């Protein structure tokens, strides 16, 4: 893991719209003529990335909500990596 990683900002890309879908009972990402249905875990993470959030704060918030989750940090970082690859999340490094 890059040492700067916890201080980077994350935010959902403006190419996607994130919203709750009552009929599907899940969060989704909408984009031109398409939709990605999110698992509840992915929904919990992305829900916290609607505004810019520092990764360390994101991890704290998730740990607070899910204190019993094993391997939470590793799983979340893996998801963030995938979501960036997919273009769902944008990262902005903070000057320290």
């Amino acid at each position: 893991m890059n040492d700067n990683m916890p201080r980077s900002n994350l935010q959902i890309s403006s190419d996607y719209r994130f919203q709750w879908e009552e009929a599907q009972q899940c969060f989704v990402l909408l984009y031109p003529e398409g939709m990605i249905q999110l698992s509840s875990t992915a929904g919990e993470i992305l829900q916290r990335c609607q505004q810019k959030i520092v990764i360390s704060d994101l991890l704290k918030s998730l740990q607070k909500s899910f204190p019993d989750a094993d391997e939470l940090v590793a799983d979340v970082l893996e998801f963030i990596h995938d979501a960036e690859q997919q273009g769902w999340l944008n990262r902005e490094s903070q000057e320290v």
Partner: protein
Amino acid sequence: MSDAIILASDQKKTLPLWLLAELTYSCPLQCAYCSNPIQYADARANELTTAQWKQVFRDARKLGAVQLGLSGGEPLVRSDLEELIADARSLGFYTNLITSAVGGDEARLASLREAGLDHIQISFQGSDKKLNDYFAGTPSFQHKITMAKAAKKLGFPMVLNFVLHRQNIHQVADMLRLAEEIGADFVELANSQYYGWALKNRTALLPSRQQLIDAEAATNHFRQQHRGKLQVIFVVPDYYEDRPKACCNGWGTTFLTVTPDGTALPCQSAHELPGFEFPNVKEKPLDWIWQKSPLFNDFRSTDWMQEPCKSCPDKEKDLGGCRCQAYLITGDKFATDPVCSLSPQHHKIVEVVEQAQETLPQHQSQPLIFRNPKNAKQFR
């Protein structure tokens, strides 16, 4: 419309995730492959009102619709388009405008953006003025370019759509260059499929095998050179496949089309099928139409199938293929889609395809029947 919708495979319920609102059949273009019905003359008087469309949006949203395609005809013809977009957006729809861009200007685009439009798809009929304007049936090439550039300037994500056929498919490389120059995010190179107007013009439109091979090669060459920057989708005519595609991602599973007069259909072409009473949103509640109407239910399962579909291991995958294609080619809406090489009537497709391999000039000499009110009246 794009087939590129991404759906999770573990869809628990059947939801009309995609609502296609065909706001009007009026259109300044005359495309000879138009998916609108042949008999569309005099449709203007029966169009749904603004309030009726808003009711459709509300009811569809309750059923789970989330992507909204605003189409036609030419949706810009509707002067209430901004009001409809704003309403749909406030309900949580992702709004996609499917337009030729003809009949609009830059100020109109800005007001659509203001109203909350999410995405715009602009169709071109060729990569240059000559062919575009000939197939559109109206001088529009330069205007389309101006509008597409303006759409990007306003920040819209933008798809450019080219319907391919025998007489423009050689332009694929130029079409892709044009899309790149304009700054499109996505290009659909969609071969015409043969229903409605396109079926009437099939001999003049169906490309040869070699034309398809060359066009796909040009597409792949472009993809390699521009990896990742501009996404391109290439759709082959069904006639050149040997296994059919599931109709609309599965009949009555994902797509709900409402036509200008309020008729609700599982697929844009379903009005061509005989023996159905087509439900209308002016008379029946949308939840009844989606969940209970015979039209939406009759092809939902695999119970309706005949052989060879009935015992086919792929029946859950392709669901017997396109019902409209089956009916239009075989005269039986319950038949296997004749595109399938296992269909006992597959030879009917093979014959048409073989005919398309003949030299170009002979076919080009067959005049196109353009989609316009005068020609529509002939078919009444």
